[in-house]
């Protein structure tokens, strides 16, 4: 055997030197690590409380970001839902020809739905919309014929695709039947909605990432300070022969415990707040029910908060303890 290993392994005090006792197993080792981590967590109560408090703020921030992302997505979707284009047909276009164009458009991937509105339906709709307006009703009666045009109302999956659909229509063999497409009147509105949607999504993502980074740094520094306070203990553990793993593992357990308790406190605070805020948000945005969202995704959300808390705690402890192990 290598003389160095021989000094280190055979001649140093080992369980054998303690009267032939055998080394304890993995189960015992894990039990000891868990118990030491839990004891440290309880005994450093002020430090634990402070660190857990900071992590609660971080997890609440994460939860708020999830809620904001959900709301901004709802805003974008409702804005996009309000945008469509309509192609109006000349009076001499037959229903058969229009239906042919409808079939062509329906085949496009970008199109969610195409709705045909005949001249008669358009007139009925117009009359119904202006039922109380005597002047309009009289004017229509005086005209004697139907002045309205048949049309196809087109809804695309994304606002950015309308321009491609219009190009397609203009290149269609039945182009001559189309009188006008209201895309050009709506173009500005459509591009505005598009830029707002893209802006909300991009800035939302950047903001989320920036705040998440701040949150991770705050957690890391808080745990680092907690471990910094125990640096002398770590030094002593090294000097009495503690292996890096033996010293490090209870700190990782402690970090995980901060995250776990922070997750519990976060949930206890977050759900009542959502319960109170949700009806007020629904008054502003009828389709955006925060309670409904966090209620139907409760399982995933709870798992996410616990995983984020524990992972943040353990990862921060792992990084923070590294520099104090060099004795």
């Amino acid at each position, binding site marked *: 055997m290598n003389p160095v290993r021989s000094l280190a392994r055979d001649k140093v005090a080992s*369980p054998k030197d*303690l009267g032939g*006792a055998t080394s304890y197993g993995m189960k015992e080792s894990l039990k000891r690590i868990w118990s030491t981590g839990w004891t440290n967590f309880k005994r450093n109560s002020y430090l634990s409380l402070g660190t857990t408090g900071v992590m609660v703020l971080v997890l609440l921030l994460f939860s708020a970001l999830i809620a904001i992302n959900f709301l901004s997505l709802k805003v974008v979707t409702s804005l996009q839902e309000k945008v469509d284009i309509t192609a109006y047909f000349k009076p001499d276009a037959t229903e058969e020809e229009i239906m042919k164009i409808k079939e062509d458009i329906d085949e496009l991937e970008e199109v969610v739905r195409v709705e045909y509105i005949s001249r008669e339906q358009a007139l009925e709709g117009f009359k119904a919309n202006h039922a109380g307006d005597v002047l309009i009703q009289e004017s229509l009666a005086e005209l004697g014929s139907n002045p309205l045009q048949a049309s196809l109302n087109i809804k695309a999956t994304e606002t950015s695709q309308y321009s491609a659909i219009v190009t397609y229509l203009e290149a269609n063999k039945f182009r001559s039947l189309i009188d006008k497409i209201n895309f050009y009147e709506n173009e500005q509105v459509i591009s505005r909605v598009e830029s707002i949607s893209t802006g909300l999504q991009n800035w939302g993502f950047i903001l989320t990432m920036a705040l998440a980074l701040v949150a991770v740094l705050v957690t890391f520094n808080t745990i680092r300070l907690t471990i910094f306070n125990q640096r002398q*203990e770590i030094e002593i553990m090294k000097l009495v022969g*503690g292996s890096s793993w033996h010293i490090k593992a209870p700190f990782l357990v402690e970090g995980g415990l901060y995250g776990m308790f922070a997750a519990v406190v976060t949930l206890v605070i977050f759900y009542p707040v959502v319960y109170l805020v949700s009806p007020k948000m629904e008054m502003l945005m009828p389709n955006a029910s925060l309670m409904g969202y966090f209620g139907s995704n409760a399982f995933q959300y709870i798992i996410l908060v616990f995983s984020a808390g524990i992972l943040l705690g353990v990862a921060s402890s792992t990084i923070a303890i590294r520099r104090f192990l060099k004795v």
Partner: protein
Amino acid sequence: MIEYKGVSTTYEDSFRALDKIDLHVKEGEFVSLVGPSGAGKSTLLRLLTRELIPDEGQVLVDGVNLADLSGGDIPLLRRKIGMIFQDFKLLSNKNAFENVAFALEVCGAPVEDIEADVPKVLGIVGLNTKVKSFPHQMSGGEKQRLAIARALIHRPKIILADEPTGNLDMVNSYDVVKLLLKINELGTTVILATHNDKIVNSIGRRVISMDSGRIVRDQVEEGKYIL
């Protein structure tokens, strides 16, 4: 057993703490290291625990050059050496039992052995009534006896005591030295670094005087505190 061969150590601030030290300590010896502050006593001890590696020369324990130990072997070396410090270096969030038990836990000792051995060792150093006390609930003398119990628990071959009486009154200082002598009588090599001339003169064993990183005197028998 312990050998320093032409050992020199310079700290980061260019302070030369040890200058070509040659020293041999036999198994079972009791050696007192004396000298003014900055003479190199603590550095000499820190080389033995591999807190430091010499710039020149070799430090050997049982013929093994400590500079050759890998990171994973260092904890095993430290379990072979019991250490006692002036500032006790006790774990403040652990009670007396746990402080001593920790040194056994890191060796991988089973719970039954820990529960049997720790009270025995605490009894040897006279702390059987303080098993559940935390360091902040103990006097200076009790803290140092607890540190000795921790150093003894894994029956080390070497005990290094760095100014163990520095924070103690004379009565407690003599108690600590008596304990160290008792440990030495059982075959453990003891190296004691101290400023305390009365203590050194009362021991009457080998005394090594150091100054400016060098050994200036080595009295192998019946040594006295002479600088």
